[in-house]
């Protein structure tokens, strides 16, 4: 008879895994492969893609998606969706602009009001979700439509138009533009400030997710909320916090929209929520929660930036952009699944 210790010591079924398998089982791998493939593809077929000066344009496209894909990825890892994320950006831009314009205030007052409102919308989404126990898909689908109507309705009441009025002659516009819409030129490359925000958000979110207690909680509430609660994780606070993070980033994106273009179209943002989700999924986030990566989501956003401009640069008909995205989404998820299975088997 062998003792149980011997059995356990001899139990070599769970062995250490080779480095390659461990690297391949990281959630970002699929998106990284896709990004390299797309980069090489457009390098080969699109002459302007090879021009260094266009790096700034590509990164700008990626950053506007990435700034939202990062919090959306965190939220998805935490097990929830936010379909209102796209129009919330527009709401943030509109609310700041309309408040300042309507009452003739310094635009910074509008900026602060918009911040409070955007974070409050996120908190409301989270609160309603936990209060009703409905799936986040339904709750945020509701907020999505509510905000879409409010954006249009309030803008029409305030300005009689479907877009907010120009505010570039108002107090504080110059400084706010410097914070939210400026750009720097490094050599031949023209970089928008959103690229900085995007990179910062990615770094902070990746740090929080992998190196802090809150990150552990995010994985846990998405993986198994019941288990998380049983070991003392504050499930409700974590989820509401994640929705508020989406709200905060919607505010940042909305402010860029406002101070970059001076006015905000009230119908904008519809459909963007899916692009954020697609970026997160390409980056390795599972729809069921508990697994994913913000770095992957940022790579997903980069894929968007490259594709959007690459299609133009290649002289292809841009009508097909969305079809291309749909194919990308399917391919990336299949690759993710395949790579993960292979790596887990090793």
């Amino acid at each position, binding site marked *: 008879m062998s003792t*149980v*210790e011997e*059995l*356990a*010591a001899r*139990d070599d*079924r*769970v*062995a*250490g*895994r080779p480095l390659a398998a*461990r690297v391949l089982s990281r959630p970002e791998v699929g998106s990284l492969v896709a990004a390299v493939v797309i980069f090489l593809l457009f390098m080969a077929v699109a002459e302007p893609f090879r021009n260094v000066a266009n790096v700034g344009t590509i990164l700008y496209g990626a950053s506007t998606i990435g700034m939202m894909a990062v919090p959306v990825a965190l939220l998805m890892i935490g097990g929830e969706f936010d379909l209102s994320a796209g129009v919330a950006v527009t709401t943030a831009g509109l609310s700041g602009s309309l408040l300042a314009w309507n009452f003739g205030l310094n635009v910074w007052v509008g900026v602060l009001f918009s911040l409070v409102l955007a974070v409050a919308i996120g908190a409301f989404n989270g609160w309603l979700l936990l209060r009703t126990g409905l799936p986040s898909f339904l709750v945020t689908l509701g907020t999505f439509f509510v905000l879409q109507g409010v954006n249009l309705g309030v803008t029409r009441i305030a300005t009689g138009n479907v877009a907010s009025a120009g505010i570039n002659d108002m107090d504080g516009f110059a400084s706010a533009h410097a914070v939210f819409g400026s750009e720097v030129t490094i050599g031949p490359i023209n970089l928008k400030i959103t690229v900085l925000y995007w990179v910062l958000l990615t770094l902070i979110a990746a740090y929080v997710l992998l*190196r*802090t*207690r809150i*990150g*552990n*909680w995010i*994985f*846990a509430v998405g*993986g*198994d909320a*019941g*288990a*998380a609660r*049983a*070991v*003392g*994780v504050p499930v409700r606070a974590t989820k509401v916090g994640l929705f508020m993070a989406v709200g905060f980033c919607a505010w940042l994106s909305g402010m860029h929209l406002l101070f970059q273009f001076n006015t905000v179209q009230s119908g904008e943002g519809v459909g963007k929520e899916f692009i954020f989700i697609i970026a997160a999924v390409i980056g390795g986030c*599972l729809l069921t929660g*508990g*697994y994913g990566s913000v770095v992957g989501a940022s790579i997903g956003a980069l894929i968007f930036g490259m594709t959007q401009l690459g299609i133009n640069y290649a002289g292809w008909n841009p009508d097909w952009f969305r079809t291309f995205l749909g194919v990308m989404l399917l391919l990336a998820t299949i690759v993710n699944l395949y790579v993960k299975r292979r790596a*887990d088997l090793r």
Partner: protein
Amino acid sequence: MTAILSLSNVGKSYGNVHALRDVSLSVRQGEVTCVLGDNGAGKSTLIKIVSGLHPHSAGEVSLDGSPVSFGSPRDAQAAGIATVYQDLALAPLMSVWRNFFLGNELRSGLLRMLDIASMKRICAAELSKMGIVIPDLERPVASLSGGQRQCVAIARAIYFGARVIILDEPTAALGVKQSGLVLRYVVKARDAGLGVIFITHNPHHAYLVGNHFVILKLGRVVLDAHRDSLTLDRLAAEMAGGEELAELSHELRGVDAGKVVPPASPS
């Protein structure tokens, strides 16, 4: 020795349903108290009272001699009572060490960063104390076997200062070998000086490790005996329902258990 945790005449009613009546039980340090019972006997209700999920509605629960009533699982945990549920409270896609420290993360430095190196080291050490070796602590818990997962949950409870550990049917979903591993860990928990409440419906598993046995039936205690005054046969018979089994065998006598029915031939 005095009991760490004792229940005297504890009852619990949900509306007009008396799920538990007059249950007395004591858990002593370094002893395994087995609670046996069929489905619906009141085992789950008993766990819920002791682990702080539901308050009891009659009788008295006392900890170290003074009466207590836990308002939440956190209260019970703070008092040193850990429950290892059947679903184990592990997040399947998270790594072993992250699960081990979930809710009790170690942090260090100015930024209150996770102290990953220490957590991995402690996790490996605690698991090897339980005789379980997992070379890659980054593996998701979902890739471990049922018995290994059970052990991670038990090791976690012991490490975080439990004095009483409640194991809710830890062997119910496991094969023979895995059950053997888990029973061994039950003994390890006992040797570590914990009071163990081992909930099961398997008298054979219970008799292998138990010091004291309580059988519940329809919310009441029908047997409360120390190991010295009980044989496995008696325990198994009591558990199987004693008289009921005799009745059943009488009832089934006419069915001819050895009979093989040939498939009906088409005619």
